[in-house]
């Protein structure tokens, strides 16, 4: 975002400002309300650290979802990919005795290969992205349970990794710092490189992108590879957060808050477009609300209802915003 654009933003009319920063304001309100309600449990540094740590993996997973979504494609397999990569990295350390860095590389290779596979079936074989990646996801979950027999891998893992969930730098949880670094990279690729701009063009109008000479298929494939790589990073972070690679952490329910975050994120900051700051704000809004509700004694089912509703509201809202701007209703496909 250039300085001029920043200056322009503050000249915009109040409704525009509300659209851009509404969710951020809402996040502030949620924090204030719960802090007033539960000053001893909610409004503590420890609780904030815990929220931030818990949400870090989800934040990276939501960025993984975001990349293909910018191109108008949905990668449902992000959760399963995350699970596979976590198990792969853990197995590399625990069973093959690899040090941390090569183990991370193993996870990244798994993620990239899965992403490449998804991208090819979507872009070259013309499979609907939701159906195609749902298939991949189901296969991956099956493979995880075949390999792990349902038992978590917690022995022989790198201590550096398993401790990172409780590590802090200047009071800030290390996982959160990693999340911010990853987010910065994704933001850079998505908005500051020709690739990111082409990705967006493909998502906005596939046919026009083709007739403008953009290599639409490779662009789409790359977005799935990026999703796979980010899911791998999230998978490794998951080991750090839990201290083990848990085969139960795979599949779609785990990434529900991430889905809500990406769509809700597209209604804020840069309304109508999938964007990194919006996604993070949305994820922390959803996560903080859920955590606060738990602390005021809401039953566990409230979380599911809240996450589900957030997705519906987010998608409906972003479709409405889009219609207001372009007269068209559909968002993505």
């Amino acid at each position, binding site marked *: 975002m250039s300085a001029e654009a920043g200056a322009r933003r503050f000249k915009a009319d109040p409704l525009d400002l509300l659209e851009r920063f509404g969710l951020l304001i809402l996040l502030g309100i949620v924090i204030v309300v719960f802090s007033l309600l539960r000053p001893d449990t909610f409004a503590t540094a420890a609780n904030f650290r815990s929220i931030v740590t818990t949400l870090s993996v989800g934040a990276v997973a939501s960025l993984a979802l975001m990349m293909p979504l910018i191109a108008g494609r949905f990668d449902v397999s992000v959760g399963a990919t995350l699970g596979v990569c976590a198990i792969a990295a853990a197995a590399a350390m625990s069973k093959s005795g690899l040090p941390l860095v090569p183990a991370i590389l193993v996870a990244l290779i798994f993620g990239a290969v899965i992403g490449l596979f998804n991208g090819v079936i979507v872009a070259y074989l013309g499979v609907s992205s939701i159906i195609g990646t749902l298939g991949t996801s189901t296969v991956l979950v099956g493979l995880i349970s075949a390999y792990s027999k349902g038992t978590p891998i917690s022995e022989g893992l790198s201590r550096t990794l398993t401790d990172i969930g409780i590590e802090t730098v200047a009071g800030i949880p290390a996982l959160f710092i990693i999340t911010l670094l990853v987010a910065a990279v994704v933001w850079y690729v998505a908005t500051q490189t020709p690739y990111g701009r082409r990705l967006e063009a493909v998502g*906005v109008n596939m046919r026009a992108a083709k007739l403008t000479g953009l290599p639409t298929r490779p662009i789409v494939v790359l977005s799935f590879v990026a999703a796979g790589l980010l899911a791998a990073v999230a998978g490794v972070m998951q080991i750090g957060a839990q201290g083990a690679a848990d085969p139960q952490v795979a599949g779609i329910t785990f990434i529900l808050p991430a889905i809500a975050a990406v769509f809700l994120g597209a209604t804020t900051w840069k309304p109508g477009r999938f964007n990194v700051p919006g996604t993070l704000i949305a994820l922390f809004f959803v996560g903080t609300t859920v955590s606060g509700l738990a602390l005021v004694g809401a039953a566990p089912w409230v979380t599911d209802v809240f996450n589900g509703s957030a997705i519906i509201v987010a998608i409906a809202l972003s479709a409405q915003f889009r219609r207001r701007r372009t007269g068209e209703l559909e968002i993505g496909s």
Partner: protein
Amino acid sequence: MAGPALQITGLAKEFAETRALDDVSFEVAPGSVHALLGGNGSGKSTLIKILAGVYEADAGVVSLAGRPIEAAKITPSTARELGLRFVHQDTGVFNELTIAENIALINGFGAGARVPWSQLRRRTVELLERFQIEARPEQPISDLRPADQTMVAIARALEDDGEGLSTLVLDEPTASLPRAEVELLLKAVRQCAAAGQTILFVSHRIDEVLMIADAVTVLRDGRKVFAGEAEGLTEEKLIGEIVGRPLQAVFPRPPAAAETRPPVLEAKGLCGGPVRDASFTVAAGEVVGLAGLLGSGRTELLQMAFGSERVERGGMTLRGKPYSPRSSGEAMRHGVAYVPEHRGTEAAFLDLTLRENLSVADLGRYWHGTFSHRSEKADAGRDIERFAIRAPGDQATFASLSGGNQQKAILARWLRLEPALLLLDEPTHGVDVGARADVFALIDEAVERGLAVLLVSSDFEELARVTDRVLIIRDGCLVSEHRADDLDAQAITELVYAGAVAA
């Protein structure tokens, strides 16, 4: 039956300042094929849309089999009640479904919650027999040849009309049919009429009209200019009525030898899609027009030169070197640019900003390890000024711009690449008059610097004014080539309708 099957009296419609229809009256005799003819902007499609209840007429009465209704009060459902049935160029059949399902989806499956399949089958067999279509109800409609698919659509439209009191409106039914299918369809339509069906046949193909019609009405500039029996009419006479002056032969005249410059694009025997054996050249600093009717292959010809339509036979050279692009990207790398016909779906990125739309075809130029927003912004500012694009700023959402300004931006996007050849498909479609002038001023400027332009436009006045040469394309064949100096809009109209006849 006494009296006309369809009578239109004093039909009028105005859009803003233009009179689309001005006191049009004619009648259609029962059991006859009545052709409605007219060029672009003649009011022919406005009339059909009023009958269908899409547009509201300003004045006039439409009466069917002696039952009158005010034309302004026609809605799609009253049109149906009165006995008007429509089959459009896009017949609205569902390829994946069977014939029986195609019929039942529109006309109803029959009473009851359960689909009475055996009854539906019987009903469909009867209908197919009535219209002499050789097919079985359970066949998918895509199994049928194109002419029979249209016939199923016709049968479907007329299913509930046992007494033959209705009038069937066929709106350009042959425009998207291959040549061989047209004759079959016309024969079948003729049979319908022989069985007593009244038909209003809208077409821009004069040879077809002469083959099939009993009577002809010609509209020009919203007025009825001719009505009469088809017998004894000639192609020349009808073209003269459509154009508005007696036919004058315009002889093909290739450019004088002194004017010929080295060609940028040279096509030899190009075949693909509807295009047959097209050979032509476009030289540097030259605007070549391509005039033809809808479905003549004009768009496909441009797309072949842009690598987005397959070339089956023949070849092209670009600046003297063999040129056979397999994708748009490859065509662009060779210096070819293409502004497609449908701006909204094929060229505009409505959700993106104006600045992003301007630079989307050439983002690489701003990338030197980091993205130079500053020079992107500077370029956008320069183009907005140079192309007189009216927008609140370069960060305005593209959807918020008017059609004319969007088109200028798309043109700017391509001219930035300094192409050698610019392919333009209906560049002023939906563009206001002021912006049109801007668009052509900008094209002229680039042409002076050596750009070669191939322009498709159905605005023949524009075509005659802005081009150096005009190629006439008819049924996929380039039939003649003319100097623009010899042409005006009427002459081009004559040529696209008559092709070889005028030459």
